[in-house]
């Protein structure tokens, strides 16, 4: 029962995180910033707006992206197979990429293509994350991982590699080339408007939940440690966001493949010697 409530409020929690991220960013930039509930105001406003669409397929794919992502989050909360969740997350990405390519819009195409390339950067790390947990716990089941003690001491390099993917997934600097507002005006989301844009907007919130719930896996069964981990990582991610420029997508992929993926492999190889 508790899980179901959690699943239902997951987007809202994500919205709160997004709101606090905006506030923190504003404060770090020495300005007042929006209210904490700003994402929800945006959401209500988008509901109220008349929407233009480009063509129905584009819109449907956007909605499916949101639903799939919610499903992914739900499955994580229910504590199912980690590797499977990661593959299902791929399906969500597929929907958004297809949506991006489905319109004849330059920026949407560019964004979708960067999204595809970023897949190359983070997906291997995610799969290795699952492998790391599998080797440590002997199972992919998230519920089992949550019930055991923390794995962070055994998988430190994987943890670092996973941290590297966080800016990419949350569209934070320096790895926000997929969204890149100043270059491609938001990428795949450029052609959405009104209530249909809301789905994409809320999907962004769900990405927060997705990333941070994966992060809590490193904390094992200690809830306090999990909260501390999320808070610290959230803060650090924001500090990095506010002290770096956006590197372009090639550099991003190169960096994550060499450092992120390299560290993951090292950690996995290291496991076999321990």
């Amino acid at each position: 029962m508790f899980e179901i409530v959690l699943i239902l409020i997951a987007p809202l929690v994500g919205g709160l995180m997004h709101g606090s991220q905006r506030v923190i960013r504003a404060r770090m930039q020495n300005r007042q910033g929006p209210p904490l509930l700003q994402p929800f105001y945006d959401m209500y406003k988008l509901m109220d707006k008349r929407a233009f669409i480009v063509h129905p397929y584009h819109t449907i794919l956007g909605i499916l992206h949101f639903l799939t992502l919610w499903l992914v989050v739900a499955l994580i909360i229910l504590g199912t197979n980690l590797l499977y969740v990661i593959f299902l997350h791929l399906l969500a990405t597929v929907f958004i990429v297809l949506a991006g390519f489905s319109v004849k819009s330059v920026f949407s195409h560019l964004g979708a293509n960067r999204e595809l390339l970023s897949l190359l950067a983070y997906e291997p790390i995610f799969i290795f994350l699952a492998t790391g947990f599998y080797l440590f716990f002997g199972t992919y089941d998230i519920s089992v991982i949550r019930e055991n003690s923390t794995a962070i001491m055994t998988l430190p390099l994987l943890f670092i590699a996973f941290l590297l993917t966080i800016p990419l997934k949350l569209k934070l600097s320096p790895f926000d080339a997929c969204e890149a507002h100043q270059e491609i005006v938001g990428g795949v989301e450029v052609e959405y408007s009104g209530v249909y844009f809301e789905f994409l907007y809320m999907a962004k919130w769900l990405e927060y939940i997705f990333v941070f719930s994966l992060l809590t896996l490193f904390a094992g069964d200690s809830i306090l440690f999990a909260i501390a981990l999320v808070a610290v990582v959230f803060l650090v991610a924001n500090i990095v966001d506010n002290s770096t420029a956006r590197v372009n997508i090639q550099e991003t992929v190169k960096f994550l493949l060499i450092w992120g993926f390299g560290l993951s492999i090292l950690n996995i190889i290291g496991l076999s010697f321990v």
Partner: protein
Amino acid sequence: MSSIVFLIFAPFILSIFIPLMSLKIRNFVVITSVISLATVAVNTTFSSAVSFNIPHYIHEVLVALDIFLLLYFLHRGRVQNSTLVSILAIVQLVLYAIVLNLSSAQDGLDIVVDGLSIMMYLIINIVGGLIIIYALEYIEHEDISAKKKNIFIAMLLFFIGVMNALVSANSIELFFLLFELTTLCSYILIGFRADEVATQNSIKALWMNQIGGVAILLALIFSITSYETIYFSELISKVDNTFLIPITLLIVAALVKGASLPFQSWLLGAMVAPTPVSAILHSATMVKIAPFLILKLSPAFTPFVSITLSLFGAFVFLVASVMALNKDFFKEVLGLSTIALLALMISLAAYGTPEATTAAMILLCFHAVSKALLFLQAGILEKNYHLKYISDIDSLINIAPKTLFFIMVGFASLTLPPFGAFVAKFLAITAISDQILNNPLNAIVLALLVLGSVVLAILYFKVTSKLFTKEVFQNFSKEKLAWKYFIPSFALFLLLVAGVLFMIDLKTIKVYELVVPTLLLVATPLLFKYATFKNTPRSKEYNCGEKDEFIVSTHYYEIAPKYLKLFSYIAIAFIVVLQVGGLF
């Protein structure tokens, strides 16, 4: 036993008579025979393992046939001025002579039908049969004489017969003959259009495949001299860890047929043939020999061979996927992804653990179905819409929704849950992970595999998304498909769906994990069809306020030619290491 004989001989006999038939009779005969072949193939699954010897006099005929075949190759080599073909034919003749001298009458089982063979029967006869039905329509759009059309159909049937025989052969000598016969079939089919490019590519296919023949003959010689057997079953049980060369040579033969690096160019050259040929080469026949052979041999592998081969397979998997990224020719993209996935199967099969073998076999089955489906659609695009290049394919969703649907299913089934290929990859990751603690090198295999599958996923989405690209105001049109196009495609689609049910039976993955994505994937086309957003206003794409049309296109990813060469050298190095590993 009778069903096996039927599977082997019925296509041969039919293929002799088909060229004499008129159009209507031909279609009727072919369709009935294809159905009966498929039925018989399904039937074999219920029978227990069969094995028998072929009579002695047929042996003599087969030897004569073999020599005749090699002489024919020699002849073709001289006619086409290809020294390579000639030399390889001569080498084979010499080696074959040695083999004939060495092999005294052996008393083993020439034909052994095990579970693997039955699985291959299913693939060959069902998928191959569907492709032949499709070819009946396809060939009618080809600008050639009626007789040649008949010969084409006959060749395809003949090919199926050869494959049926090949997967049941236990004698390496017999295997060699059948191996050469598939080479012959591919040679004729690739060169079918008889223009310059086709001839060139068919010659290329011929000499490359002959390398495989040489390797088999060498393996045979070593096998006879060291282990005194010409049978797979005995060789595998007898083989000594210190002298694995017959096995490693057979692996080379498998790699040649599987068009792994550095032998990839013959399969890519095969694109010039009519599309059913590509379809049958890529899905049901020819290239499937590679994983089949590796699966057959894997119990005999030493750990060294096993890890080298899996590293090699994973390497080729990644490289071929990367190579496919910059291709624009639709069939070429499919071809390279075939090479990649075959390498993955080889890599998995090389492990020999139950999970890895299961993964390889699942992949083998579903790859056949998916690739057949995709190639059929490629042919439809080519014939109905004159589209060959991905960059030309815009708004297919409006022009040809059915074709698009099948293409989408084809691509989705190669990577996304709940389809078989996904389950196979899932199993593969688990299987390799299990091995990592034994040997850290497996982590590299896993890394290559993961990278490769992400690259492949990128490739598939890049291609499919191009089909979706559509302008704002464009009308939806209904697509008419000939039934001989539609039925095979639909049947293949049903097979994929049935595969999902089979996966549930497999119990490696939970039921809801299959049901949930299935629901999503079912919802997508339904929504596409019924959610039309009639009353929502449309607006044009955002182009910075400009009204011009801008050219949009998916990206391509160039790799420098020098890297291609480097990859080939690495592949050759792997093969050499493999042989050396076999020696010690």
